[in-house]
């Protein structure tokens, strides 16, 4: 197969890709992935030299992530992806704490991988108190004292909080929440799926969850940090390969793990500089969006992820905005009901009291992944007023 088509689509200058939640991969990680497909394809459990090579490469990948996160390699575990890792993180703490209770406390804007199973457990047990939801303010932030009140309630065995929200960017008060959790002897899961590679990794947690996609790595690599002091276990028989799979009982495909580690190293060396320029670009975009009439610019303007922006345009629909921007070569996401598979609006926007219709969301790629991102942001800023006006006109909502 000729390699020109894929190369052409990667370098296509006319597309502004501003929805970097699932990629693309860091270009150096692409090279590593391709090399590892040749060198690290074997089953790392096998004793032949191909298997031992794969094992060595997997151990290297784990070591890189451990050093980056400031933990021991035996504390780094894998999961099929970030959301699966989050479910595992909660399940293992619930199981370890089952004699003390079954209650989970989480913010109202946590990932669905935390909230949906928790609501199902509450419905199944017939006890709504099994889930304590901490409300957020209109910037999307929990109050640390409210969180502490919830965590102190009897039967609480798990708390979960994001380092920052992936949809609206608002950074959560993880340090005081962690202190309250320690005082109440409740383990805290910190969801860093949106932050690793963009912010300094959190230090205070009982389980940390990440996803390689946030730092320019491939899909299919969820990372859990399970510090030795944390009481965490899954029901069922112990995996005979536990020395390889770790307590999460998951071994990633070695080339993916290696590409994740490569992307981590590349991203870490550039992180602070990348975050500074991304922060400024999003600031420009916030200003441009707020000049469009009746547009709600959502989330904390300052204490936020450097690379995320969500805005909602009154009297517009999200699907039409995404489609109209796509026609102009700009790719963005949306949290509006009409763009979701369930036809429900984003629970994050709803919990904040923000407008859910007419929503578009930008997640900037890393500079190394998308060297033209500044130009792409400016193209979106220029297109936004006319696209919003066009969609409003099509809905007969021009002069409201």
């Amino acid at each position, binding site marked *: 197969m000729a390699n020109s088509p894929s190369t052409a689509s990667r370098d296509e200058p006319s597309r502004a890709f501003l929805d970097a939640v699932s990629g693309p991969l860091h270009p150096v990680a692409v090279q590593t992935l391709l090399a590892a497909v040749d060198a690290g394809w074997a089953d790392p459990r096998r004793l032949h030299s191909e298997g031992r090579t794969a094992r060595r490469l997997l151990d290297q990948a784990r070591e890189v992530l451990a050093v980056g996160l400031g933990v021991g390699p035996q504390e780094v575990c894998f999961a099929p992806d970030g959301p699966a890792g989050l479910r595992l993180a909660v399940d293992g703490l619930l199981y370890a704490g089952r004699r003390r209770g079954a209650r989970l406390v989480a913010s109202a804007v946590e990932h669905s991988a935390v909230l949906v199973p928790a609501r199902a457990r509450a419905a199944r047990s017939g006890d709504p108190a099994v889930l304590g939801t901490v409300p957020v303010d209109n910037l999307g932030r929990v109050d640390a004292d409210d969180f502490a009140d919830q965590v102190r309630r009897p039967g609480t065995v798990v708390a979960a909080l994001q380092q920052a929200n992936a949809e609206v960017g608002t950074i959560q008060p993880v340090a005081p929440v962690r202190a309250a959790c320690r005082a109440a002897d409740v383990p805290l899961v910190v969801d860093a799926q949106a932050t690793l590679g963009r912010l300094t990794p959190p230090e205070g947690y009982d389980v940390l969850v990440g996803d390689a996609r946030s730092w320019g790595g491939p899909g299919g690599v969820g990372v859990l940090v399970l510090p030795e002091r944390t009481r965490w276990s899954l029901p069922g028989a112990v995996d005979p390969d536990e020395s390889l799979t770790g307590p999460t009982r998951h071994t990633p495909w070695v080339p993916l793990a290696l590409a994740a580690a490569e992307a981590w190293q590349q991203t870490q060396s550039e992180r602070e500089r990348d975050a500074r320029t991304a922060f400024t670009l999003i600031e420009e975009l916030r200003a441009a969006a707020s000049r469009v009439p*009746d547009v*709600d610019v959502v989330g904390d303007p300052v204490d936020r992820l450097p690379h995320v922006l969500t805005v*909602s345009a*009154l*009297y*517009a*629909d999200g699907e039409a905005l995404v489609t109209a921007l796509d026609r102009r070569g700009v790719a963005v996401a949306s949290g*509006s*009901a*009409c763009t979701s598979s369930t*036809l*429900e*609006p984003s629970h994050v*926007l*709803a919990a904040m*009291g*923000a*407008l*859910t*219709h*007419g929503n578009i969301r930008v997640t900037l790629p890393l500079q190394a992944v998308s060297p033209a991102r500044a130009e792409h942001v400016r193209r979106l800023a220029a297109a936004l007023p006319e696209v919003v006006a066009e969609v409003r006109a099509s*809905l*007969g*909502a021009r002069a*409201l």
Partner: protein
Amino acid sequence: MSLHDSQPGPAAVVDARGLRCPLPVIRLAKRAQEAAPGEVIEVWATDPAAEADIPAWCRLRGQEFLGAHGGEHTAYRIRIVG
């Protein structure tokens, strides 16, 4: 609308049942343009997004959200402030 005619109600009803976002809010905004200050508008909607979007519209437009009550559809009450 005959089912609701017998109920004591607000001055104006916007029937947005079966409409998807953002149409319920657009209908509300159009009706609000004709409303006098102090008038109460009730919006009937089945779209789940209306639950977030009608209070958000009130906040963005400085109108007063009075509350909502459910049933086969949800009825949202808004007082037009100005």
